[in-house]
Structures are given as structure tokens and as C-alpha cells.
């Protein structure tokens, strides 16, 4: 092995081949996939949509690179988000007492058009995050395919920027629309509680609470190796992949990620505008830096006063447009209740086999 200019190890293509081949050990069992497929086809997966184990991940976005692209305006996407959120139970508000702290824009760096530079905005965001570090991060992610909202994630993470060892709770409510169930329907509600691991940890010992709703055709709600059947709930302790809020150490808007973005010119300021009545700075992601979000373009709106993120739209011009929105809630007793997963009456507890 040779060294690069900074004294780091240089790898060979064979090192890469061997590393990739070693990932074969993660291959799932063919028997279980075949069984699921047979179950799906016997259940008539055709027009009704597949019956499957739904993991705590987004469903297929059905984006095909060679299909004609459907251009969706941001207004359409934003309207779809609003519609999606109002369709969800208990979703009229993310919670009372959302943060509205203000931060000043550090430095006086402005672009030629009188706009702040992306670096100045990013630095202001870093400062703003400090002001909400103990708040609850409420984030939604909405997928709109061909103008139709296909899924919505609602996520509460507390604290928004936990320190190592601090107890962290993350609750996610996932809703989707399928050909069989055209109304946006809540599929699962889950929460993970764990002690925040050190940066870079890949897993945590955590307690998972999962409520799996029936009605959209899924055969189970999967989380790691655990599958909770529809109409039941489970609570298990185990080792799971590490989680992070979006502005936490492992999030895509983490301070480290933002700092890297500043250094590498990941964002550029487009203009000032208003979002949901808030004065906002619109940024557009460039293709610089190792972490850019696929597919471009990605637009990000930051509150011009608080410098907290408001909304991000990804994939404009592609078949599926994804919109993320953020609100930071004070950890009041009422808001902390939002972190709890209510068990629906009549649901029995499912105990996975060990």
C-alpha cells in the first residue's frame, strides 16, 4: 500500500473489489424472499399492489431514468405537502410552542446582488442550531409522484442536537397511498429510544416501540430483523442502526456536514422569498462536495431571521419530488407527548421469537 500526499493510505482497485465482494455476506435469504414473492403473487399483487413486509424506509419512488420527465412546479409540490399533512390524523399542528428564536447573520459577507453568501448563511445556521439543540425537531418528508402524494413521513426527534450519552427519542409516523388504498393511510407508528452514541457509531442499543396498522396490504412492519404483523404492536430492545435528527451529528444538516458544505461550495444563494409567511433565503445545491443529494436540483429555504431550515425540495423535474419541512418545538410537556407512540385500543402485543 502506498501513501497519498497527506500521508494517508492509497488503496488499489483490488482492495476495492475485495471490499465490495465482502458485502455479499449481507445477502438476504433467498428462501424468505421467494416465500414473500409467492405470497404476494398468490394474494394477487397485480392491480392491488404488492403485499410485502414494509420496512421503516421509503417505498419505491418508481423513478425511471428513461421515462419522460414530468416537470412539477414548486407550488404544486408545496400544495401537495399541505394536502398530505392535513390528511393525516392529528396533523393539524406539529405541536404548540414552535421555536422562533432569532440569530444574527455573522459577518457581512454579501454577494454582488446584495444577498448573503451561502457560507454566511451556513454559518448562521450553525449558530441557529445551538439555539434549538434541546428542542424537538419535527420533520416531515413527502413524496409526490406525478402530482400525487404517495407517502408522508412525520418525525419527531428529541433533543434536536443530543450530546453523547444523552437519551434520545425518535418517533416516526409513516403514511402511504397505494393503488389498493387510494387514501393516504397511516401504515406504522414507531419510536426508538436510546443513549446517543459517539460520532461515527454504526449501531445503538435501543428500545423500539412499533405499532403496525393494517389496511394497506403490507404483511408486516419491519424494523431491522423484527417484523411486527399488522394489527399488533411490539416493544423490543436490541441493537439497531444508529439514528440521528437532521441537525444532529449524524444528520444530513449536521454541523459537520454544513461546515464541509461551506468549504466545498455545496450551496449557492438564489434569492430572498417568503415561505409560509416567513421571510426566507432560497439556496440551491450545487454538485460540489461528496454529500450532495441525488437527484439534483435540490432547493433549500432557510428562515431569513432565525436561519433555521424551513423546507427542502429535491428532484424538481423528476417523476418524484420529495419535500422536507422542519419545525423546532420547545420541549414542553404537551410537545414531549408527541414522542410517545399511542397503542390503539384492541391491538394485542406481538412478541417476536428470539
Amino acid at each position, binding site marked *: 500500500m502506498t501513501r497519498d500526499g497527506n500521508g*494517508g*493510505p*492509497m*488503496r*488499489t*482497485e483490488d*482492495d*476495492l*473489489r475485495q*471490499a*465490495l465482494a*465482502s*458485502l*455479499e*455476506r*449481507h*445477502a*438476504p435469504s*433467498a428462501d424468505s*424472499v*421467494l416465500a*414473500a*414473492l409467492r405470497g*404476494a*403473487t398468490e394474494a394477487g*399483487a*397485480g392491480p392491488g399492489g*404488492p403485499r*410485502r413486509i414494509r420496512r*421503516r*424506509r*421509503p417505498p*419505491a419512488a*418508481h*423513478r*425511471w431514468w428513461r421515462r419522460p420527465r414530468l416537470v412539477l412546479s414548486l407550488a404544486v409540490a408545496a400544495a401537495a405537502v399541505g394536502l398530505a399533512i392535513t390528511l393525516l390524523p392529528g396533523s393539524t399542528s406539529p405541536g404548540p410552542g414552535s421555536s422562533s428564536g432569532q440569530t444574527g447573520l455573522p459577518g457581512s459577507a454579501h454577494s454582488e446582488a446584495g444577498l448573503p453568501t451561502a457560507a454566511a448563511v451556513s454559518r448562521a445556521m450553525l449558530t441557529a442550531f445551538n439555539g434549538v439543540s434541546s428542542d424537538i425537531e419535527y420533520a416531515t418528508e413527502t*413524496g409526490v409522484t406525478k402530482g400525487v402524494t404517495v407517502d408522508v413521513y412525520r*418525525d419527531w426527534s428529541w433533543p434536536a442536537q443530543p450530546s453523547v450519552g444523552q437519551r434520545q427519542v425518535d418517533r416516526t409516523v409513516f403514511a402511504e397511498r397505494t393503488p389498493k388504498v387510494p387514501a393516504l393511510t397511516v401504515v406504522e407508528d414507531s419510536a426508538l429510544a436510546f443513549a446517543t452514541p459517539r*460520532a*461515527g*457509531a*454504526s*449501531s445503538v442499543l435501543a428500545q423500539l416501540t412499533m405499532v403496525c396498522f393494517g389496511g394497506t396490504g403490507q404483511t408486516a412492519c*419491519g424494523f431491522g*430483523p423484527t417484523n411486527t404483523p399488522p394489527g399488533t404492536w411490539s416493544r423490543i430492545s*436490541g*441493537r*439497531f*442502526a*444508529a439514528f440521528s435528527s*437532521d441537525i444532529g451529528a*449524524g444528520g*444530513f444538516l449536521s454541523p459537520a456536514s454544513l461546515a464541509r458544505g461551506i468549504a466545498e461550495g455545496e450551496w449557492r444563494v438564489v434569492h430572498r422569498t417568503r415561505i409560509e409567511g416567513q421571510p426566507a433565503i432560497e439556496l440551491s445545491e450545487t454538485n460540489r462536495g*461528496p*454529500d450532495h*443529494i*441525488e437527484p439534483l436540483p435540490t432547493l433549500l429555504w432557510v428562515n431569513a431571521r432565525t436561519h433555521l431550515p424551513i423546507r427542502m425540495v*429535491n428532484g424538481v423535474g423528476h417523476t418524484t419530488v*420529495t419535500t*422536507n419541512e422542519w419545525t423546532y418545538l420547545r420541549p414542553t410537556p404537551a410537545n414531549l407527548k408527541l414522542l410517545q407512540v399511542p397503542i390503539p385500543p384492541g391491538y394485542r402485543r406481538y412478541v417476536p421469537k428470539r
Partner: protein
Amino acid sequence: MAEAALTFEEFAAARLPAVLRFAAVLTGDRGLAEDVVQEVLLRASRRWETIAGLDRPEAYVRKMIVNEYLSWRRRSWRLVPSGAGTEVDERLTPDPAAGHAEREALLAELARLPARQRAVLVLRYYEGLSDTEIADALGCAAGTVRGYASRALALLRVEMAGPPSPAQHVIKEKS
């Protein structure tokens, strides 16, 4: 027997292990690999007559898998830690032979690559596809593929030995 003559059940029974290995390498995550393959095969089963009529149905299915992987949206990133980027399963214990710190470090860096860069590396260095074939799979130009690859290799500090040899362009066949 030509692949085109296979029924979907025969194809799945014969080729599923290889397809699952590919998905595992592509995603680095057993759960995600299972989800992606499941989604793709369900869709493929509904139009198997068309796919079976293609020259290389398996190559088409792999292309579907790559597209499916690339279409998983950002929320899933929350599950990808800044470490190894693989979902932890207690049934998986580290392979002692592969447990060298350097390889683990390389895998961790691979997990942090943008999905498209990772897909290019997997198609080139695991599947052995040429840049033209990768471009076809991803729906972009070969020059774009080279750009993704060189960027990813630079991030991973991988030295290129030289132009890929023709032998590396042969698709690996695994049963």
C-alpha cells in the same frame, strides 16, 4: 437453456441468490437489499413475458435493481450512520478474514458515498461492467460515469492501475 425460455418462477429459483448478492453489495444493507429485490421482482413478475423475451433478462432485472436502489429517498439516509452504513443484525458476526481495520474503513467510506457514485463502483468493480454498459444501466453518458467513478475513487483514495482490461468487462456469472 436460454434465459428467455425461463418462467418467472424458474428464473427466481435459479438466479435469486446471485441477484440478492448483487443487491447486498449495492446497498450494503441486508434489509434494504431484501426490500429492493422484493419490489423489483414483484414488478418484474407482472410483465415477465416481456422481460423474458429480452436478450438478457437477468441484466435487465439488475438494471431495475440499480434504479430501485437509486430511487430510495433521503429519509432512508437517517438509517445510514456515519460509520459502516450497514444495518446491524446480531446474526451477522464480523468475518474474521475480512475484519481488518483497513477494509472496514474502506467499507465505511463506501457507505458514505452518494448512491450514484456507489452504484458506479459496484457495477464497475463488482459486476465488471464497462463504462458504456454502466451508462446504459444508469441512463447517462459514459463520460458522466467516468466522472462519478473518478470522483468516488479519489474520495476513497483508490489508485487506478490503468485502463480496465477487457477481461474486467465480462459479467460475472454466479450461481
